[in-house]
């Protein structure tokens, strides 16, 4: 009996150990035809983003989950995580976090309502933070994020995730110097793994 249990356990371990990951979670880099250091604008859920920051590029990193969505009571935050373009050393983390009021989003599938939706960064209830070593709230001069397309993705007729694609740009003050981020684009596949509900916590 012990032998049978042992063989069963080993077989189960082998089977589960060989399970294959879905590539829908990978980042797929398709270069932009004009800015080869930026990912092209796509609507396939390639899990990429990129923006020209002054004359450098802030893009997704293969070391970080490129997007986390954080619900916190009445607000939603989109956390873009990637490379610090001013630091070529290993682990050069940078993040941009866009927070705005939206109490309608309770789970990731509710993001479908963002189809063709624009959020203006100069609205009072919008906060943009940058993490570059320290985290600081940016004094926004202008900018917006445009969710061009939100779509539900089915794989083999089963609902798999939400694809959120769009563009963004912003102008802000940093150490009293005006700076800009232009030509921003993103294309994310979103499922429950990257949706965090911190309401009441």
């Amino acid at each position, binding site marked *: 009996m012990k032998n049978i249990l042992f063989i069963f356990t080993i077989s189960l371990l082998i089977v589960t150990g060989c399970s294959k990951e*879905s590539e*829908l979670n990978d980042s797929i880099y398709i270069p932009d035809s004009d800015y080869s250091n930026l990912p092209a604008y796509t609507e*396939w859920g390639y899990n990429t983003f990129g923006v020209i920051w002054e004359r450098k590029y802030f893009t997704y990193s293969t070391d970080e989950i490129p997007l986390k969505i954080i619900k916190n009571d009445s607000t939603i935050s989109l956390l873009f995580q990637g490379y610090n373009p001013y630091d070529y050393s290993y682990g050069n983390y940078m993040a941009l976090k866009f927070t705005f009021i939206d109490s309608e989003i309770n789970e990731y599938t509710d993001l479908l309502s963002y189809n063709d939706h624009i959020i203006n960064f100069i609205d009072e209830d919008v906060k943009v933070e940058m993490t570059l070593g320290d985290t600081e709230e940016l004094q926004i001069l202008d900018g917006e994020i445009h969710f061009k*397309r939100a779509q539900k993705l*089915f794989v*083999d007729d089963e609902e798999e995730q939400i694809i959120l694609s769009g563009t963004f740009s912003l102008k802000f003050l940093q150490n009293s110097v005006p700076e800009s981020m232009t030509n921003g684009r993103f294309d994310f596949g979103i499922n429950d793994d990257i949706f965090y509900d911190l309401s009441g916590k």
Partner: protein
Amino acid sequence: MRKNTILILMLFFGTCISAQSISTDHEPEISVPGLYIGIESGIKTFNTFEKEHEFIRESASYYYGYSYRYSALSLMSLSYYASINAEYRMLDNHLWVSGGISYSTMNASIAKYSGSDSHPDYFYVLLNQQDNESYYYRISELRFLSHYIGIPLDFNFAPITSKYFQLYGKIGMDLNFRVNTNKRATFYNEEMNSYEPEVLALFEDPQNFYALAGFGGGLQIGQKNKPNIRFEMDLLSFVLTPDALSLVEQNVAFGGNISFLIPLNK
């Protein structure tokens, strides 16, 4: 490597025989027999590239440091052929011109064999996208098998001839006309097989005309007025119609063939 070694040995052996023939043969050259008829069968393998299909998710492509593109899609195109040829030999048996009719198959496929536990053996095809819904299907393999009737034209030059062996080089062209194509899609999830017609309908049929031109060389065994057997390498063939296949793109081909010829006018 093994093929190269065999070819070098064949060349060396043929050269030796030829040298012997030059030094020992004092008989006059046998008159040119002229016309031969033969059958030929061979295989060509192609250098195959990914064709841009906007409905295939680029899940199979990775960039390392953004500078190198590696496609994990397994692309293949392979041709088998058989032909009946008439050959006319001239210039004291040094120049052979042949033409005929051929039947060939072109087997082209896109598949995913990652060989890795961390990446699956399928790729995604977008079948339907409407409003705010997109439908992907996981495909293990797409395979197109096309049948062609063709006209092969070859010019062979044999600088080294002996009584029993001839070493020769050739330039040639193949003009092929498509008869039909069988398409097949293998789904990762067999329950999705009912979508095969829709997935295959995303791809155009291969073009009706397909052409190759290239050069090669080989060894012919047999006396001049007797049946000959010929072993030939297609060293490099250029695909003149790189877009002819709808599934993949090609640029060059390599291959080999064997043929058997008999003289018609002894």
